[in-house]
């Protein structure tokens, strides 16, 4: 079974038109010695059997009550997101190379670019990148191009996975990456400013950072700009319903992961990465960009634009090798934010903040638990436990709770630290229960 509709009669007629005796004959250009030496795959199955098999496999993932983030967040997804992004006219189309018959995708992506600009306080956005981590790597490469410099300063409180992606991308390009250790979950401003030179292409920060700390990075933007460097910030989009926008802080390139905007956890993907910047850097943006224009009758329409930056035109001189974007996930992000709406996003951010503040109070009061520090946080915060946090998390997993992300694997000397995430989906009851379980484990 291959979803091929060709009947034996169709095949005969087509072969006759081609002038071939058999389908095998069509493979004659492939020399015999190059033929597959093995193709040991199982036989096929029906839809019904497949569903049974897939349910069995998915059943091996244990449902947990999650207080974990690490860049991916358990937010509620409104029903409209699945229903509308599930329209096959969206999901079975491809890159809108032919704009006249792709205005649906093109207009949606133009609306997406607009919503990203508004959310981040920036002037231009592309039509999405793969994910938040690769978007950060692309932003770093963009800053190298814009400034013609070769050095990056990155705060260690940027998500460790994203930092690793940046390193992976830049390893072969001889770029110097200076990492600034955090001081108790806060950016070390003194060390960071000292690391800034006239060779620095960009300073890379995250807000809220991996420890959950919320900061105003305006002074760092000023310090970077004085040295001719750019400020790149990675942001958590839901927090922008409450927190000062990176645009208002003076950021030059803003990136983030769109998973929290209507994309399921789905074991880590697909989501989308967003990237936004100021107008003057638009030609250095990687990836697809949608632009507004007019048709022959003066009617508004949308097209892929500034394609001369891209690999299919510029080949090895392109701004990036990226070809596809994460169109469908970006569409989900647009539908999500439209459904939540202007006031809804403010309320949603508040709900996340209030629940996290409540959890901070309750968990911080447990014997053997301290807060890393008293800094402002959004919906994540770092606890210092009286014991090794990895052991505590392991123990609590047995009772069906993912209590948080222990920091020992990512930061030296932070074995007792635990980052706890609270979204609007966690209830007061669940938070109270976590406090009891934590108390019992310590």
């Amino acid at each position, binding site marked *: *079974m*291959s979803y091929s509709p060709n009947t034996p009669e169709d*095949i005969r007629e*087509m072969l006759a038109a081609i002038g071939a005796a058999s389908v095998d004959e*069509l493979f004659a*250009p492939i*020399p015999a010695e*190059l033929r*597959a*030496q093995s*193709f040991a795959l*199982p036989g*096929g*199955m029906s839809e019904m059997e497949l569903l049974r098999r897939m349910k069995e*496999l*998915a059943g091996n*993932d244990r449902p947990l009550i*999650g207080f974990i983030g690490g*860049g991916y967040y358990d937010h509620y997804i*409104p029903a*409209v997101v699945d*229903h509308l992004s599930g329209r096959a*006219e969206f*999901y*079975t*189309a491809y*890159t809108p190379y*032919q704009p*006249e*018959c792709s*205005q649906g995708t093109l207009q*949606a992506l133009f609306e997406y670019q*607009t919503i990203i600009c*508004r959310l981040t*306080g920036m002037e231009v956005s592309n039509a999405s990148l*793969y994910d938040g981590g*690769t978007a950060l790597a692309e932003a770093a490469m963009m800053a190298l191009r814009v400034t013609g410099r070769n050095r990056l300063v990155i705060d260690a409180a940027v998500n460790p996975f994203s930092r690793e992606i940046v390193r*992976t991308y830049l390893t*072969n390009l001889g770029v110097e990456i200076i990492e600034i250790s955090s001081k108790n979950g806060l950016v070390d401003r003194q060390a960071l400013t000292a690391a800034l030179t006239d060779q620095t292409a960009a300073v890379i920060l995250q807000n809220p950072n991996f420890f959950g700390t919320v900061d105003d990075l305006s002074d760092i933007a000023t310090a970077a700009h004085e040295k001719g460097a750019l400020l790149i910030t990675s942001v958590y989009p839901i927090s922008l319903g409450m927190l*000062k*926008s990176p645009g208002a802080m003076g950021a030059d390139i803003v990136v983030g992961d769109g998973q929290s905007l209507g994309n399921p*956890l789905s074991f*880590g*993907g697909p*989501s989308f990465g967003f990237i936004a910047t100021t107008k003057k850097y638009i030609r250095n943006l990687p990836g697809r960009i949608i632009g507004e*224009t007019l048709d022959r009758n003066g*009617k508004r329409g949308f097209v892929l*634009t500034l394609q001369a930056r891209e690999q*299919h035109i510029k080949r*090895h001189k392109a701004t990036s090798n990226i*070809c*596809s974007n994460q169109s469908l*996930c970006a569409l989900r992000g647009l539908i999500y934010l439209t459904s939540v*709406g*202007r006031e809804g996003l403010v309320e949603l951010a508040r709900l996340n903040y*209030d629940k996290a503040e409540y959890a901070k109070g309750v968990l911080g009061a447990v014997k053997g638990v301290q807060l890393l520090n008293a800094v402002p946080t959004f919906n994540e915060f770092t606890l210092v436990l009286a014991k090794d946090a990895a052991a505590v*998390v392991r123990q609590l*997993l047995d009772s069906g709770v993912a209590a948080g992300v222990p920091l020992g*694997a990512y930061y030296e000397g932070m074995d007792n630290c635990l980052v706890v995430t609270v979204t609007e989906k966690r*209830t007061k009851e669940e938070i109270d229960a976590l406090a009891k379980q934590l108390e019992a484990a310590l």
Partner: protein
Amino acid sequence: MKLIYEKSVAGRRGLKLPASDVPRAADLPKNLVRQESAGLPEVSELDLVRHFTNLSRRNFSVDTNFYPLGSCTMKYNAKITENVAPLFADSHPMTALLPGGESSSQGALGLLFELGGLLAEITGMDEVSCQPLAGAHGEMTGIMLIAAYHRAKGNRKKYVIVPDSSHGTNPASAAMVGYEIITIPTAPYGDMDLDAFRAAMNGEVAAVMMTCPNTLGLFNPHIKEICDIAHEHDALMYYDGANLNAILGKVRPGDVGFDVIHVNLHKTFGTPHGGGGPGSGPVGVKKELIPFLPTPRVIMQANGSFALETSNPQSIGRLANFFGNFGVMVKAYAYIIMLGREGLIEVSEQAVLNANYMMAQLKGHYDVPFDLTCMHECVFSAARQLKHGVHAIDIAKYLIDRGHHPPTVYFPLNVKEAIMIEPTETESKETMDAFIAVMIEAAEMAEKNPEVLHEAPLTMPVSRLDETKAARDQNVCFGPW
């Protein structure tokens, strides 16, 4: 159609949020708080539903139209795969990375491991990493693996060789890893010029990137020889899997001599293209390259359970937030096990049959730059039509008016006025016949009444759009708010 922002009315609401079950916390200090609104649209749920439903109706798609976009393998996407992907919707990727967390993620880790194994068998490679997020991302990963291999051996390498018919992503991906590019022309027989390749080959070449069948839809009979020449110089062979749909069960790149490959799950393995993504671009390698694979790497332990290797000093590192576009992999895995061995072989056989039928029916009407048996796609040139002032783009636009998504035009770059048609195995003879009839009609129209082609399309929500204006205005965001 109005933008969603133009439909916004102050005070309208879509989603209703739950009431808070915790006390309101003290506000954050003012300098940390947003002062201006984020300006999201304010619409009712019905407004939202109508807006996006009506937008969707302004798209051609596989489910509504024949979509023979060459090089993109726009096959039918089985609906059952849409039903199985959400089974993993609530699996948090961080769970598997928690201490002791792997045991709570055995389903997802098992699927990753099994899919890697299936893809390794299909392509003849020793191990596959599913982490790369798209085809081009897989190419970049593959070239990074090659760079790591050479570094470990102390090889000094500077160049990557690509044929001029290659996808633009090939040279762009190699450049992202810091290599210089050598481009080899296409010979009159339709494949990379072997003599030019031999002449260009030297000890500083890190890799040769090939698509086979190439973007002209032709299988290169000298591919083994090319692999041998490259290996003599300790250059590795990279297989761009964009055209894998042509050779399932027929040829395995690993058997031929390729060292690194990527496959496009959204092309060959039936996952939807999503209007431009998400894709997924797993990378396969021969055993000498396994130590360099990205982390985290999924492994099977002696007791049969699945675990993650999170660090390895030789690894090129991490390329994605977590484990790749997992939801896409679920669909591809379902597709592969549902079709099974025989089904996948049939995929390639029927795809090649359909493409050759298309070629046979149209070659009297359009120039064929390389008149050979093609594989899964065929390439024509509108050079004959150009004599009447009709370009490939005019034919493409006429096809839109007649209800067909156009083929890929102006690619590959080495064919003048290229028209690249990939019907895929899921299209019926009747559908192809209808398309062929319109293509013939367009060829006749080019001679008799070219104006009609220049004016097309007339039946779409918009006529031809001014791309120069778009590039000049750079209006990429609706503002102000």
